[in-house]
């Protein structure tokens, strides 16, 4: 059985990581790179075998579970260390191992000069392993291992240049912000166990419609908690602040972790728990709003940044906002579709930016670039393709996925969501081409002492592959052909949800509690698919994208003085440029009061109040003893006197 190989998929990178981590310094750079890429290759090949094995499963069986051992448990609570393979997992495995492999190859070239090369690849492999655990775990807690594991690795990798204070701070920040999300996630898991008596995905999703009341309190709390967990990992409002700072890490890290895989974990989790979310319309609305809001907000910030990687980081936040919006309106397929295409083009963009940075010796400020097109053609063309993709120009992959999200946000959601999406799309096109024009076109503003050069093959090849994927990735879900939408059909078993059945159970439960169920009939009206609206939307969004590109062209090529004039004296710009002062706000509201309060607790409460009380008691006793101590004169006869006095009083007492 090929599926028996499942557990090897995360194991290979783990082994690679251990070898590199412990012996990396001894075996030399070549071997380290070979082991890292080799383990990824093995993992990828295993995934292919597992895929084949999955296809050979008997009809009607959609999930394959492999329990390796029982992890821990108490009483009737048991967690397995088990993996599951289902369509969603397979998609994610391919994204992780495939893109992971490409980025590994790129990193071998990019990190060549680094001293602690081995450390980087140990973390890198470990990260992939954790990410695979995340997507393959068959229960919430195993997912949580991966969930925390990727957070940990991103902590290591962001803080890779640990001698830089900003890098350390960014790493710590990432981990702690992630922990805030994890806190909610853990609570959700506990609540789920409380209700279901199990935390196995299959069982929970199966039992959910029977045990939870539609729109009831329990499901709303659970899903809200899960969603908070997802915002932490996927950098959504209000926990997005760590991601832009995470750009302190080496560029391949940004590409792998902060674009292609880890940040999409939240989306994956939402889709994985789609049944629960479907039961809670309130949470869905919140998810969609937060997603849309993040998409717009991050895009506006992205327009004003000058650090090439930060722009891309905000663009990532914005794109993931899209995915969340898709989840929020119930278009899970669209979310996964966008996740996949985003992984392609964003990885390519990040790697391209890495190539640029590499080519001009570590400069990241776009104001010191320009005109690089002629120096690094391969980088330029791949970058341009990806930029067009993200902007949503047909027929590249991003166009299809983004369009699907927009279509569903209008049809399944409402016009507000669609408005959010389309304006974010406009902004995206604008700032991406602002990036392209500032970096590759126009006058060269590069420091004259630096001679820009194209990166080695090791780095450009991955770019080409990714650009290719970004071009054709749209094939996964062509519009108009809903019967033929590959991804949709593929994911159907995972996303299957019988609303009518769930409502029936809820009514039953409410009835038993002596309550009347509200009228849910309108929820069951069938939705129609309207091809014309879809086509109209496509045309409209293409126009919007082109407008954005043209706008950028006017602003940054034709009239480079325009941005200056346009923003002169605008208070809003200052605010956007400083990221709406959210970091400062968090600092003032959470960090500083905590630290100061803790100091107060320690110095006042601990040292003065509690210890003061104890020491005070001791001092009082001490004072009394000092008074009593004068009785102890040291003269023997005095002591004898006391004995006599005592004896006499005894006698008196006996009278």
């Amino acid at each position, binding site marked *: 059985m090929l599926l028996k190989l499942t557990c090897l998929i995360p194991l290979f990178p783990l082994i690679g990581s251990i070898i590199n981590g412990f012996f990396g310094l001894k075996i030399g750079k070549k071997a380290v790179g070979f082991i890292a890429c080799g383990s990824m290759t093995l993992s990828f090949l295993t995934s292919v075998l597992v895929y084949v094995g999955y296809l050979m499963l008997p009809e009607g069986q959609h999930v394959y579970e492999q329990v390796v051992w029982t992890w821990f448990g108490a009483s009737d609570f048991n967690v397995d260390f088990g993996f599951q393979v289902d369509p969603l997992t397979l998609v994610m495995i391919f994204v992780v191992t495939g893109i992971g492999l490409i980025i590994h190859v790129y990193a071998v070239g990019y990190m060549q000069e680094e001293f602690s090369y081995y450390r980087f690849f140990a973390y890198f492999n470990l990260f992939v392993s954790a990410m695979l655990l995340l997507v393959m775990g068959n229960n919430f807690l195993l997912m949580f291992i991966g969930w925390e594991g990727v957070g940990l690795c991103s902590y290591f990798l962001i803080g890779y240049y640990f001698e830089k204070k900003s890098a350390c701070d960014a790493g710590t920040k990432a981990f702690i912000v992630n922990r805030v999300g994890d806190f909610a996630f853990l609570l959700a898991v506990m609540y789920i166990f409380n209700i279901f008596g199990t935390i196995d995905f299959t069982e929970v999703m199966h039992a959910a419609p029977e045990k939870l009341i539609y729109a009831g309190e329990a499901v709303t709390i659970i899903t809200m908690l899960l969603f908070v967990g997802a915002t932490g990992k996927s950098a959504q409002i209000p926990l997005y602040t760590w991601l832009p700072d995470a750009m302190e890490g080496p560029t391949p890290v940004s590409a792998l972790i902060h674009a292609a895989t880890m940040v999409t974990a939240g989306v994956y989790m939402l889709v994985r728990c789609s049944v629960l979310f479907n039961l809670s319309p309130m949470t869905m609305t919140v998810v969609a709003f937060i997603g849309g809001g993040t998409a717009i907000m991050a895009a506006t910030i992205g327009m004003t940044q000058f650090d090439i990687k930060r722009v891309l980081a905000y663009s990532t936040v914005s794109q993931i906002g899209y995915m969340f919006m898709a989840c929020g309106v119930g278009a899970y397929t669209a979310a996964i579709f966008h996740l996949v295409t985003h992984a392609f083009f964003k990885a390519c963009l990040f790697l391209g930016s890495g190539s640029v940075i590499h080519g001009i010796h570590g400069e990241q400020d776009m104001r010191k670039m320009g005109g690089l097109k002629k120096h690094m053609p391969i980088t330029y063309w791949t970058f341009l393709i990806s930029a067009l993709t993200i902007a949503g120009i047909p027929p590249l992959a991003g166009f299809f996925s983004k369009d699907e999200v927009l279509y569903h946000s209008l049809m399944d959601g409402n016009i507000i969501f669609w408005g959010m999406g389309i304006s974010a799309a406009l902004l995206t096109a604008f700032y991406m081409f602002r990036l392209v024009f500032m970096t590759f076109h126009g006058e060269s503003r590069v420091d004259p002492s630096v001679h820009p050069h194209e990166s080695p093959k090791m780095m450009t090849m991955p770019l080409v592959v990714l650009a290719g994927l970004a071009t054709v990735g749209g094939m996964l879900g062509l519009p108009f052909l809903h019967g033929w939408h590959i991804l949709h059909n593929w994911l159907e078993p995972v996303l299957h949800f019988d609303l009518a059945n769930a409502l029936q159970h809820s009514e039953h439960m409410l009835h038993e509690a002596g309550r009347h169920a509200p009228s849910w009939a309108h929820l069951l009206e069938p939705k129609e698919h309207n091809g014309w609206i879809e086509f109209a939307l496509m045309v409209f969004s293409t126009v919007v994208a082109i407008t954005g590109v043209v706008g950028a062209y006017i602003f940054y090529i034709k009239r480079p003085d325009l941005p200056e004039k346009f923003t002169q004296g605008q208070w809003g710009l200052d605010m956007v440029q400083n990221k709406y002062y959210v970091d400062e706000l968090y600092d003032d509201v959470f960090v500083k009061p905590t630290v100061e309060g803790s100091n107060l607790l320690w110095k006042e409460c601990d040292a003065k109040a509690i210890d003061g009380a104890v020491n005070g008691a001791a001092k009082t006793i001490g004072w009394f003893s000092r008074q009593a101590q004068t009785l102890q004169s040291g003269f023997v*006869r005095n002591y004898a*006197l006391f004995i*006599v*006095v005592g*004896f*006499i009083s005894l*006698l*008196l007492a*006996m*009278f």
Partner: protein
Amino acid sequence: MELLIFYPLAGFCVALALGVIFNKSPVGSAISLIGMMLGLAGIFVLQQAHFIAILQIIIYAGAIMVLFMFVIMLLNLKQGENEGWASREKNLLLSVLTGFLAIGILYKIWQVLFSVDMDTPASLPDSFGTVAVIGETLFTDFVLPFEVASILLLTAMVGAVVLAKTKLD
């Protein structure tokens, strides 16, 4: 008859005891003490405790008092050292206290002894107080305390040697 012997002996003892504490010179005190010990030995004989009486003479009047005299000589204490007495006011207070003590104890004895029937003392066998009887009791019922006492004496001996030999600091 017995009373005739008892009262003089008792008076003798009390007088010498007072002599111990009121004598100005330590040597005088010591000699008074020897006298008192001898008197007490007489009283023990009167109570038919012959063995103890002998011990009293050998150990107390002999060994212990010799030791006292020896130390007094060794330290070469001058006669009539005025620090031998506490101050006058203090002495008054202390005498009053001691008086209280005496009254208290005597009253208690009186109270106890005269409130219970004390008319039937046991008739003593001839063997009472002989070495044989004491020895038998000592080596049967009280053999453990006896051994402990020997260890005590040994320890005291070693201790005395150590203390007198090394300088205290």
